[in-house]
């Protein structure tokens, strides 16, 4: 695999249960706090309450009120984009004078799963068309482009839990390929009954706060949120004389081609993706400061991922931030990339919350306290249903 040119990141925004903004999330993570609770916005017929990480209404920016014609997923994506653009020092006038692309990963954001509508349709009723109109208006990447008046390439990636990481990788290739001057890349997903019921039916949801990599882990907690990063060509960022916050140094992806819901036991697909990302970034294992793992807290994922980390990235600090955010599906890879940028800047990573006891089947242990990290390069990785693996290598910037 050949070396790819680094792509500058000038801003990042994040909204999830851990915080209304990226600094807010970082503060709560280093403070070691989290609040998984049973869902409030919807109810289910399960007698067991499975905790989730919901985004409270007050986290949304006041300039972005709820809009019944726009999905919650798109609203989250736009909120994160607003913060990212502010962080990058870009106003709408500047933005609209350039060719700006949008690449967003999602799962729920692209699903037409409005239960009320469907129940009535099934009964032979003639349900109102507003849920359909909302769905047609709410493709996440298209919504962001429309909201900010952008006319460059647009893509919504629906690669399940790897979508956020893949979206950043795709956007970086747009920048390198000259398809646009700026690319807004990230992921967004909202909590809903369908995914809540779906993961419970797969018996991989935990009725306790999630414990990534822990011996006694019982499964995942779902979450919701969004994160967006601003990627720019060298010309644009030099022209603006803007300090780079980070670099996308490399991206790799693969498919296990093994099973629809279980990862391949030998982790071959993940290894391939890590190798591709590191080759593209020209990095060696001993240069990696830390790894933001996928770490969902399911027995299978953490075992396979943990083993791969132990083998090919030994002695490198790693953590799962899903203990703070829940599994945000299509947003996860992007939220975790934003956290990786912030941690590289800070030169430290928080404890991997929820972990206490090493699982002998995994052998690697994530960090159990705030840990100083040395090095200018870090990895963020995602494993998804369908066997997708996606890995990005991010570099420390100038801020």
């Amino acid at each position, binding site marked *: 695999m050949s070396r790819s040119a680094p792509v500058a990141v000038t801003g990042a925004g994040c909204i999830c249960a851990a915080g209304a903004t990226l600094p807010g999330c970082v503060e709560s993570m280093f403070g070691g706090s989290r609040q998984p609770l049973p869902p409030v916005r919807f109810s289910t017929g399960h007698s067991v309450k499975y905790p989730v990480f919901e985004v409270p209404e007050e986290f949304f920016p006041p300039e972005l009120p709820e809009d019944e014609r726009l999905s919650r997923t798109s609203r989250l994506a736009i909120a994160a984009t607003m913060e990212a653009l502010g962080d990058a020092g870009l106003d709408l006038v500047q933005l609209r004078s350039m060719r700006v692309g949008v690449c967003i990963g999602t799962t729920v954001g692209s699903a037409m799963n409005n239960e009320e509508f469907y129940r009535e349709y099934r009964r032979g009723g003639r349900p109102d068309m507003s849920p359909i109109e909302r769905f047609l208006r709410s493709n996440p990447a298209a919504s962001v482009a429309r909201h900010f008046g952008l006319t460059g390439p647009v893509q919504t990636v629906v690669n399940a839990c790897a979508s956020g990481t893949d979206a950043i990788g795709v956007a970086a290739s747009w920048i390198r390929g000259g398809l646009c001057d700026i690319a807004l890349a990230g992921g967004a997903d909202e909590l809903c009954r369908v995914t809540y019921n779906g993961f419970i*039916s*797969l*018996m991989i949801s935990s009725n306790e706060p999630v414990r990534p990599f822990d011996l006694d882990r019982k499964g995942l907690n779902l979450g919701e949120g969004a994160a967006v990063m601003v990627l720019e060509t060298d010309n644009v960022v030099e022209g603006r004389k803007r300090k780079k916050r980070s670099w996308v140094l490399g991206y790799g992806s693969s498919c296990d081609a093994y*099973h629809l*819901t*279980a990862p391949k036991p030998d982790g071959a697909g993940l290894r391939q993706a890590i190798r591709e990302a590191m080759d593209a970034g020209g990095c060696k294992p001993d240069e990696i400061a830390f790894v933001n793992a996928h770490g969902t807290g399911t027995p299978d994922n953490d075992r396979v991922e943990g083993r791969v980390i132990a083998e090919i990235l030994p002695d490198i600090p790693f953590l799962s931030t899903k203990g703070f955010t829940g599994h945000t599906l299509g947003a996860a890879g992007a939220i975790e990339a934003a956290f990786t940028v912030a941690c590289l800047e800070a030169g430290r990573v928080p404890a991997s919350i929820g972990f206490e006891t090493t699982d002998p089947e995994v052998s690697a242990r994530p960090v159990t306290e705030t840990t100083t990290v040395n090095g200018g390069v870090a990895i963020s990785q995602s494993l998804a249903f369908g066997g997708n693996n996606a890995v990005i290598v991010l570099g420390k910037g100038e801020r």
Partner: protein
Amino acid sequence: MSNKEKIKKMLVEELNLEEITSREIKDDAPLFGEGLGLDSLDAVELVVLVQKHFGIEIKDMEEGRSAFESVNALAEFIEKRSRG
């Protein structure tokens, strides 16, 4: 229809085992791995099917594992749990 027959019908129809009939499933044949060759996704689907067709809840896969060893094992499990 006996529970065993009901189980076999459920397996064939709900898991789309198109090339086999209920009668061809042996009572003591393994359901997973060898025998019927079901996998982990079938296992969680079976948990839901047992709830739906027999009203019995399987709380985790530890419980499920022994119940799903064969048609016999599942029938026994259902009988035991039905008696309460």
